[in-house]
């Protein structure tokens, strides 16, 4: 199980994947909004999306779990 974490505090602007999607290393999976900027976050590993833990518009702290892979 690999987790995709928020690299900075912000609001979830866009979720780009859904459960059971295949992701590749370097693929954008979530767009965060912080300080009025959009920051795409990538998956570091390859895998299948097990769970999306956040919803668009939700605030996440740095290090918060966004997506789990299996």
């Amino acid at each position: 199980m690999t987790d995709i974490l928020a690299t900075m505090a912000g609001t979830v602007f866009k979720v780009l994947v859904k459960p059971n999607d295949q992701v590749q290393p370097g693929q954008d999976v979530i767009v965060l909004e912080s300080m009025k900027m959009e920051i795409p976050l990538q998956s570091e590993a390859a895998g299948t999306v097990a769970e999306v833990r956040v919803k668009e518009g939700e605030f996440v702290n740095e290090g918060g779990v966004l997506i789990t892979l299996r």
Partner: protein
Amino acid sequence: MLRKVLIANRGEIAVRIARACKKMGVPSVAVYSDADRDMPHAKAADEAYHIGPPPVQQSYLVQDKLIEVAKRSGADSVHPGYGLLAENAGFAQRVVDEGLVWIGPPARAIKEMGLKTKAREAMMRAGVPIIPGATACVEGPDAAGEMAASIGYPVMMKACAGGGGIGMTVVRGPDDIARAFEECAHRAQKFFCDGSLYLEKLIVGARHIEIQVLADSHGSVVHLNERECSIQRRHQKVIEETPSTAVTPELRERMGEAAKRAAAAVGYRNAGTVEFLVDPNLDFYFLEMNTRLQVEHPITELTTGVDIVVEQLRIASGEPLTFGQQDVGQLGHAIECRIYAEDPVRFLPSPGKITRLSMPGGDGVRIDTGIAEGVTVTPFYDPLLAKLCVWAPDRPEAIDRALGALSAFHVEGLKTNIPLHQAVLGHPAFRAGALSTSFIEEHIQPRK
């Protein structure tokens, strides 16, 4: 004069407005969210009221709370600053309906300039040149494709209700139009609650040059010369200067007159800025009008001697302008560097606690800031930490003074874009005055 001003904003601009109020002997009222309790702006006014949790949707954008604070504090007027509710025509009208004075333009003018396709029509009627493109919003990706083909690629896709560079993107060819449409519409919906888009021809090699105007309620409109704002990242300004190296006295007069016509065409009152793109042939085109105080207003103040915020207060209280166009001078050269809390290479935001702060001073250096040592810069608001403005008798000296001031600007605890400013100001092309809105991509960040 006004009796008491509610400052419906935060950060450096709230501090700036409080200073102008003090100068005029008018008490001011600040508001702050949970995240801003210790911020300088909460202490800059004579009174301060808490208005809710950190997210702007629960604090600085809640109209009911702001009106309630105005009433409770006995304020008779509201200064919206920039951003937040400054260009919200509904709020401007609400303030007036509540019997308060809106320190800004009439709601109708905000609305007319806010809908970009409507604004383009109004400008065409007023004889102000506009960028070739659509006069109506496009309905979907297919319609956008047809429109783009008729305008001719590359095109700029923009939000009809947009501004501030948000929700716009360059589309280079037909293969990109559908994806661009989807992304832009999503962004426009999120930021402006209106997902409609329109298209304009992309002007290659353009400069962004804007004209500051002041209009009183007695029919008098003056312009305060231009500001060159071509140095941008992600369509947002980073460095501004005045005068522009491209603007001759003759062009200044033509652009100034066009800006005054633009303001008059919508019944404008108070301070506003008409933005133009200027192509390499020095033909200029209306981009949009910012119906509010502009971030970069200090460089105009430094070169004209006019205190724009004080003029806003005077105009809002019904006083006539005390000077005419022939009285507006232009002395020396001024540059503004927007110091952002962001990584200077990847432009990623960098919130955090400011553990140490030491700012430059001395002759010809003005700093407008809303932060202080020990405060935490949160992810909830824009990344502007400070505006470093310098004035000098000429442009080369102003550049040197800015570089000197930047090297004395120390922030610890988070990353800032100071190295980006140093790279731009130290670049031979910048010194040569050869600017365009793609300067940073062309000269500073080709590595990527």
